[in-house]
């Protein structure tokens, strides 16, 4: 769409406009440079920012002003007036313009009200934000298939950039490692949610299974079961709970949300009853977590001598296997087929029940695995350890761009969603915000992010 608006002739005919653009860019960049000198910014940074501003202005000029600055020509030919062109332009780029205006408005209001808000760092942030927005919106129109992944990636880049500008040590290796560590827990918990969402279902039992496996593993270790045997049993139990979820919710697919919630309640209650029997401390389980399990998930864990927690590698392997598997194996393709259209998948004699149940089994197993790893991370059993994951898994899956209606998305998308959520959390923590403010901003940010790419079509297009 945008490509059509770049006729080559414009550049040859209106090359003087490019010269004007160059001049404008030099003036703006020069102004920035002088301001920077006055504010005694480090010279390397100043040069970098000046060059960046210059390039940005040139690009915007060439991409927008030059192609549309043909007022003289058009009016002489009697075709649409300048106003009409401007309106046309505004209509085609309304999303971009509205969001730019909103950002500008916020920036101006903040500058006017908050003391010392109008400084160099904030201006640069503002410009970077605008540039990334323009870039994202324009380039994403070239994508057809994986637009949401691209936008998610750009959001990730934007937030990371802003985080590095504002927070000292945000882009340090240690911080990235800790972000990846927490992201890998969330990512592993999201494995099942993604698979289930691909079929159009939901699994809200994940947090309860995480908490239950966390407590029950420690309980079994406390009973003297070999840890690796205990973990195997836990994973099998997780798969069993998933199987139960799948079997029960198969006939009630519209109500999978609430059914899995019920199963989750039951699992959580049952686990606590079992672990409380014969114990004077109801709800608390004591035991010693083996060193290798701690190493698996601890921040200072090592993998074959490398200073990387093994859980990150586990997540990476799982992610690669899933991304590849969903695209290239029979199971993965059939999963998409079923999610897209049950009837036509049924004509291909794909067993809906089998795939549905298997997806839930994967979900249960991955939740149990997350619970096991979280035990290694925290070193103590706690039934509520999964609670943050109740809506977090859902948010990550949706934010990545996997449709909750099924058939669209994939684990690669979820990985992006998980990273976005994690970087956002780290950013808010780094800004020194309290938990409640984090949650508030988090809630407000989910909506526009999802609105960027997960909008459903209008009803009149569905008839």
């Amino acid at each position, binding site marked *: 769409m945008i490509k059509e608006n770049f006729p080559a002739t414009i550049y040859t005919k209106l090359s003087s406009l490019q010269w004007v653009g160059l001049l404008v860019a030099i003036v703006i960049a020069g102004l920035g440079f002088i301001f920077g000198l006055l504010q005694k910014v480090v010279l390397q940074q100043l040069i970098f920012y000046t060059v960046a501003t210059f390039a940005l202005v040139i690009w915007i000029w060439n991409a927008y002003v030059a192609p549309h600055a043909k007022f003289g020509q058009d009016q002489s030919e009697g075709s649409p007036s300048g106003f009409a062109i401007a309106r046309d332009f505004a209509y085609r780029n309304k999303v971009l313009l509205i969001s730019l205006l909103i950002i500008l408005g916020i920036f101006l209001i903040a500058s006017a009200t908050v003391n010392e808000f109008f400084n160099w760092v904030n201006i640069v942030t503002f410009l970077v934000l605008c540039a990334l927005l323009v870039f994202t919106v324009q380039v994403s129109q070239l994508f057809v298939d994986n637009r949401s992944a691209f936008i998610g990636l750009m959001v990730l880049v934007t937030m990371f950039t802003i985080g590095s500008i504002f927070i000292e040590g945000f882009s340090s290796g240690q911080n990235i490692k800790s972000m990846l560590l927490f992201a890998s827990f969330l990512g592993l918990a999201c494995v099942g949610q993604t698979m289930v969402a691909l079929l159009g279902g939901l699994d809200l039992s994940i947090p309860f299974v995480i908490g239950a496996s966390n407590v029950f593993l420690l309980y079994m270790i406390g009973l003297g079961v070999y840890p690796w045997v205990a973990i195997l049993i836990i994973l099998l139990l997780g798969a069993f709970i998933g199987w139960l979820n799948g079997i029960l919710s198969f006939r009630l697919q*519209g109500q999978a949300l*609430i059914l899995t919630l019920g199963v989750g309640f039951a699992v959580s209650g049952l686990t*606590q009853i079992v672990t409380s029997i014969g114990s004077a401390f109801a709800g608390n389980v004591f035991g010693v977590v083996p060193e290798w399990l701690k190493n698996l998930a601890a921040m200072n864990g090592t993998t074959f001598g490398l200073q990387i927690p093994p859980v990150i590698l586990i997540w990476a392997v799982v992610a690669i296997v899933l991304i590849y598997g969903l695209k290239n194996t029979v199971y993965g393709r059939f999963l998409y087929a079923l999610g897209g259209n049950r009837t036509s998948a049924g004509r291909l004699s794909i067993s809906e029940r089998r795939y549905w149940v298997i997806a839930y089994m994967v979900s249960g197993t991955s939740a149990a695995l997350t619970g096991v790893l979280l035990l290694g991370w925290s070193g103590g059993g706690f039934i509520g350890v999964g609670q943050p994951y109740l809506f977090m898994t859902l948010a990550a899956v949706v934010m990545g761009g996997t449709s909750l209606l099924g058939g669209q998305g994939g684990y690669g998308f979820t990985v992006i969603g998980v990273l976005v959520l994690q970087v956002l959390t780290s950013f808010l923590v780094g800004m020194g915000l309290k938990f409640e403010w984090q*949650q508030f901003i988090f809630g407000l940010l989910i909506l526009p992010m999802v609105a960027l790419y997960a909008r459903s079509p209008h009803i009149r297009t569905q008839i």
Partner: protein
Amino acid sequence: MSDSSNSSTAAASSSSTYMLVPILLLFLLLIIAVLRSPNLISSAGIGSAVIVLTPLALATFSLMVLAMAGRGTVDLSVGPLMGFINVTLVVLSGSGALESPVAFFLYAAAVGVIYQLIVALIIIYVRVQPIIVALSGYLALSGINLVILPRPGGTAPEWMSSWGLGTTIFSPILLILVLATALWLIFTSTAFYGHLRLMGSDERAAYTSGVRITIVRLGAHIISGLFAALAALTYTALIGSGDPTQGTTYTLISVTALVLGGTSLSGGRGGVIGSLMGAVNLFLIGYVLATFNFGAVQGFVTDLAYGVILVLSLLLTVAIPWLQRRIPNISPTIVFVVLSIAFAGVILHAKYDYSQLAVEVINKTQVIEAPTSIPKDSLSDDASNAVATSTSSDQVARVTSSVDSQIEIPSVPDLTDKTEIAQSTAAGSLVMQDAIRENPVTKIVSTDFFFENKTYFGEADSALAKPIALGLLWAIVLLIVARATVLQTRLQKFSPRMIYIVFAALVVSIFMAWDNSVLPNAVKQPQASSKEAS
């Protein structure tokens, strides 16, 4: 589901079979609850149940409206929204900005409606899936609640403090609940309601048939916001202070209640009666479990029971089409009536004064085993407080206390035993009644529920409440049966609204009937006084 656009009259008879599950569960739980703890059926018992129940029921209504609107809407943010209104109300009234009840209501309603309007506009125009919007609202509101009020505190205004006592059935809370229910029932007769159901069950069909789905969705959200505001008000009355986190817990339990009430999360099917029953069911599950003593694992057992019952009731809805094929024309109304008659029997049985029976048993055994200890005639000599005789008072106390705790004594003795006792102690009870008649004891001071005056049933000078109440109960039953019959045969149109009006009139007349002044000759039973003394 198939029940898309039936008129409300037809819906009552055939297509509301889904109501069977909540009805059956309701009566099962009620019977267990009454047998385990008859105190539930008393003025204070029902009163406190209503107080606890109402916020949950209204939150469920709020969810129900949106669930009916389709698109898989589960408004997860209802709990935080309640918390938000609660917290801001307490803070505002604490600072003196909000004083009068009217301002309170208006403020709460405005917040609820505005929030839901914003949500609706986002859903309609930004076209994001409703569950995402709800999730977003959940996080944002539960965050801002903690900002406004970091920890539980503050107090509800003066005029609201008496609302949350729950000592009598008739309280403003009950009025709010009844009014909200009645308003919805009146709303069901409008065309808007039909549009709502049509849109919920098939949005495309609604759009193509000319329903203005934008307006309908906006309306659904406004109604939902109003219900949420009422829920927040009653919740504030319940806890009497501000709490930023407790409101959030209402999300999950009201979703559970919604499903227990038979509302379909896929849209188009639901009702206020079902949701009410779902909320009552959920309350009763907790109540029944509380009568068992699980010690430290009590909370876990509650979790387990919630989960299992939720799953089971969902699975039962799968069986309904099968049931419908087997038993054609099954009417939930008839089932309800039959079960309520059975339940009335259970109440009478459970509330029968076992302490008196037990005392008589004790007296009898004492007469048989140790005849010298207390002569039978001393009962009649002992004029006032006839039963609480000095010699057997400790046994009476033991028996009555065990009845109170409802655990040791078998609450359902064998029928044969009972008749035996009745025959063998007929003479004794006659003596007792004579003693009472000769010595008119104090008049009724407290406003007890009518079932508590049962020992004087059938006596000329006894309380009038029970016969009146029973008569009215039968009248209701007959009316409902008549209505169901008319609907089933479809001989003629019969306005369902009539039933509600008659029902309301009956409730009011029952209330008037047991006003103290109406019962001049009522006699306080000595049993009760001795129970209170012990």
